[in-house]
């Protein structure tokens, strides 16, 4: 159909100008809702970041028998360094173990008394790539000759995994609910704006305008509103993050410092917000105008 570019653009912008209040309402709704969504998403990224650091710090120790042979030691060492799930392996020899032992029990001389470096087992400190790998790695070595025992904090790891999963789920749910309510709010605002112009649509239908001819200026209008609203939300989220960063960087709480997200993550979220704003605006308008096209 002869849908002239000139007509469409002129119609879109004159409509935006003609209904400044409705335009503002739509833009603000998009901005506020998407700011909340963006905030939730960044919070989620912060939590992921922090838990990654905690989980990355989880390790297990493989203690060798003090009398394990050189060959047995080498076998364990080689196997560990060939495992793809292992990020880092450190060998702690008897002297280092002893130093650590003395430090841990420094205010308990009764325990340290009479114990020498030769009594303590050397060990491999293994840092897996993911907390989930701790158990499978550990169980491989339990029966290996020369290994005295494998130590890992199974309960702690399980709890950690469970807690992070719950936190992530909660934030995902929150962002999802916010996104849905934002969409509904935007839809409602657009529908109000279109309701105010149902006469015009009626006349257009009457004189034989095609549905796409009627729909496209509305969709463009929604798109512009969505992009502007998404842009405002992106700006708010970026400013909010900068503000928090400035005030929390020096925080004594390690947990909070670990949660600070990088500039790249913020930029990604900002782009996501603008794209979602555009999509919700355009598709919302198309859905909202549908009702009035049905003649």
């Amino acid at each position, binding site marked *: 159909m002869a849908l002239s570019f000139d007509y469409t653009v002129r119609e879109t912008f004159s409509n935006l100008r003609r209904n400044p209040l409705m335009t503002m309402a739509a833009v603000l709704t998009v901005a506020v809702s998407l700011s909340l969504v963006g905030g939730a998403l960044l919070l989620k990224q912060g939590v992921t970041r922090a838990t990654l650091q905690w989980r990355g710090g989880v390790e297990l120790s493989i203690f060798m028998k003090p009398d394990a042979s050189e060959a047995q030691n080498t076998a364990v060492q080689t196997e560990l360094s060939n495992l793809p799930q292992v990020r880092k392996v450190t060998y702690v020899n008897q002297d280092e173990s002893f130093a650590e032992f003395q430090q841990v029990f420094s205010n308990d001389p009764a325990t340290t008394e009479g114990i020498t470096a030769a009594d303590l087992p050397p060990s491999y400190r293994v840092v897996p790539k993911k907390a989930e790998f701790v158990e499978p790695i550990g169980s491989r070595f339990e029966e290996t000759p020369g290994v005295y025992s494998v130590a890992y904090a199974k309960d702690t790891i399980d709890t950690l995994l469970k807690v992070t999963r719950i936190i992530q789920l909660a934030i995902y749910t929150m962002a999802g609910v916010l996104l849905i309510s934002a969409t509904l709010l935007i839809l409602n605002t657009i529908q109000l704006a279109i309701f105010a112009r149902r006469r015009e649509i009626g006349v257009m239908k009457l004189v034989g*305008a095609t549905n796409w001819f009627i729909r496209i200026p509305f969709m463009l209008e929604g798109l512009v509103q969505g992009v502007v609203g998404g842009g405002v939300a992106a700006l708010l989220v970026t400013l909010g993050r900068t503000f928090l960063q400035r005030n929390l960087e020096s925080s004594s709480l390690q947990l909070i410092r670990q949660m600070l997200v990088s500039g790249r993550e913020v930029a990604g979220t900002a782009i996501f917000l603008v794209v979602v704003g555009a999509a919700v605006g355009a598709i919302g308008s198309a859905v909202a105008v549908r009702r009035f096209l049905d003649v």
Partner: protein
Amino acid sequence: MIKLDRVTKSYKTSTVALRDCSVDIAKGEFVFLVGPSGSGKSTFLRLVTKEEPPDNGDIWVAGRNIGQMHSWKVPLLRRNIGCVFQDFRLLPNKTVAENVAFALQVIGRPKHVISSTVPQILDLVGLTQKAQNFPGELSGGEQQRVAVARAFVNRPLILLADEPTGNLDPTTTEGIMRLLDRINRTGTTVVMATHDVGIVDTMRRRVIELDHGVVIRDQARGVYGAAG
């Protein structure tokens, strides 16, 4: 031009708007649809523009069976039909010229065509002086003339008018009727639903009388009241 073949239409409230209605209107005719309120006149017009589908029966407009027409072709059907209503249905935030031009814009007519056609049609309806006024600044009769101009600017084959003089005083009514008559003389088929006894009796055109959705009279050169 317009043919209804045993058409029945009822609404959810179980009232029958048209019952087994057969009418054949030839090209270039001027037809009055008369009958009391609720006799089915408006339904008749809405079926012709495919704003509603019939329950039963076939409807032909300009040689096409519109019952089998795809919904995407409906806009093309409506470009052949101009519509005028009792309440004018003008856009209050557009000027007279813009209201008329709008009808051409939305069907994708190029600018130079619009800018040459609109003054011609405004001249035809006698509103050249008011081209830059808004509908709110015009009298009822002037507004209706704008509506007629908008309906006719596309030179449709058919002009449907639903009580176009219902809100107008007798003198103004006469002006509108002269305009419709003039349009009819260009070969456009005009179908007008009305209550106005005076118009029908003066014009002496074909009269189709509906009562409770049934055609009770179809008379060439008829009058409003019962045959006589």
